[in-house]
């Protein structure tokens, strides 16, 4: 028995037999490249991204050069599937490379991006995590990360003993805030504001008279 959690896009959770036959899903759907349909075999979503743990420097160079006129950061997102935050992290302090089109990258440029990637990966493969929640000046949550990111240097950071604990604190607070905002009846507060304004105007007229 397998339970498959999809975290991309709208997401899904699918229960399958050991052989992959779909028993149940949060969302059944037919898509261009695969189906989530009861009694059909579950198929993983297709991906063109390279696993960053397995990519060689030569493959990275070829992948970036193939992106032609695209910005390096966008090409990294597409080629490694790492998301914008980590693609930018790999290019921090390398502003010129970020602005260059991929086709103009030199071997030295690729070497420095590959070096930054290896540095980032070593923290993950060695499991030397430094889980933290990034805070703004008002102690509002900005992000949560398993390692210290250069992007957040200068921000307040709250450390945790595990990434699970950091995520728990982050999402409990975020979810509570979202529920509070979702429960706000905008019309009710507008009506109350109008009522108070009228009352103030009447009292001002009354005292003025």
């Amino acid at each position, binding site marked *: *028995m*397998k*339970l*498959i*959690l*999809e*975290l*991309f896009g*709208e*997401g*899904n*959770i699918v*229960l399958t037999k050991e052989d992959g036959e779909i*028993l*149940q899903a*949060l969302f059944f759907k037919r898509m261009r490249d695969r189906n989530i349909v009861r009694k059909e075999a579950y198929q*993983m*979503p297709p*991906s063109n*991204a390279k*696993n*960053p*743990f397995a990519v060689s420097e030569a493959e990275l160079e070829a992948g970036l050069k193939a992106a032609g006129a695209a910005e390096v950061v966008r090409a990294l997102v597409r080629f490694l*599937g*790492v*998301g*914008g*935050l*980590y693609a930018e992290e790999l290019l921090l302090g390398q502003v010129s490379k970020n602005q260059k089109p991929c086709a103009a990258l030199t071997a030295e440029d690729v070497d420095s991006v590959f070096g930054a990637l290896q540095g980032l990966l070593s923290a*993950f493969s060695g*499991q030397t*995590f430094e889980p933290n929640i990034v805070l*703004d000046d*008002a*102690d*509002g949550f*900005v992000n*949560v*990360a*398993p*390692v210290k990111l250069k992007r957040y240097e200068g921000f307040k950071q709250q450390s945790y003993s*595990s*990434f*699970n*604990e950091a*995520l*728990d604190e*982050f*999402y*409990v607070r*975020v979810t*509570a*805030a*979202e529920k*509070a*905002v979702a429960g*706000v009846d*905008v019309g009710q*507060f507008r009506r109350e*504001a109008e009522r108070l304004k009228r009352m103030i105007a009447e009292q001002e007229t009354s005292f003025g008279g």
Partner: protein
Amino acid sequence: MHEELFTVATGILVQKDVTCLAKKDFTSFDLYAVVQELKNRIVDARVNNVYQLDPKTLLFKLHKVNEPPIQLVLEAGRRLHLTSYALEKPPAPPAFCMTLRKYLPGGWLSGVEQHEFERVVVFQFRAEMAT
């Protein structure tokens, strides 16, 4: 407008949390780190029960001998982590949750793996097939 609304409606605490409302993408790196930690915590745990908190969120209650109860949150498209909080559960389980309860409680969680470096996690269970 929004800041004013948050202040009036929910007070200072929520106003301070406005930045939380920016969508946090659960990246492949996040998932890699979570799964590494989960392997030590939840593999070989027994499934006590499963709850569906909302249309996209599941809560698993797991148990390992001589260890405190373990709670695992899975939210489709958004997050995966252990929680120490007591989360509100709906009184009646939806159909999806009913199916999970048919197959999983009483079984063991035997593995958790990130599929390649994608934002997909596969949980493996040793569970008796319901007849």
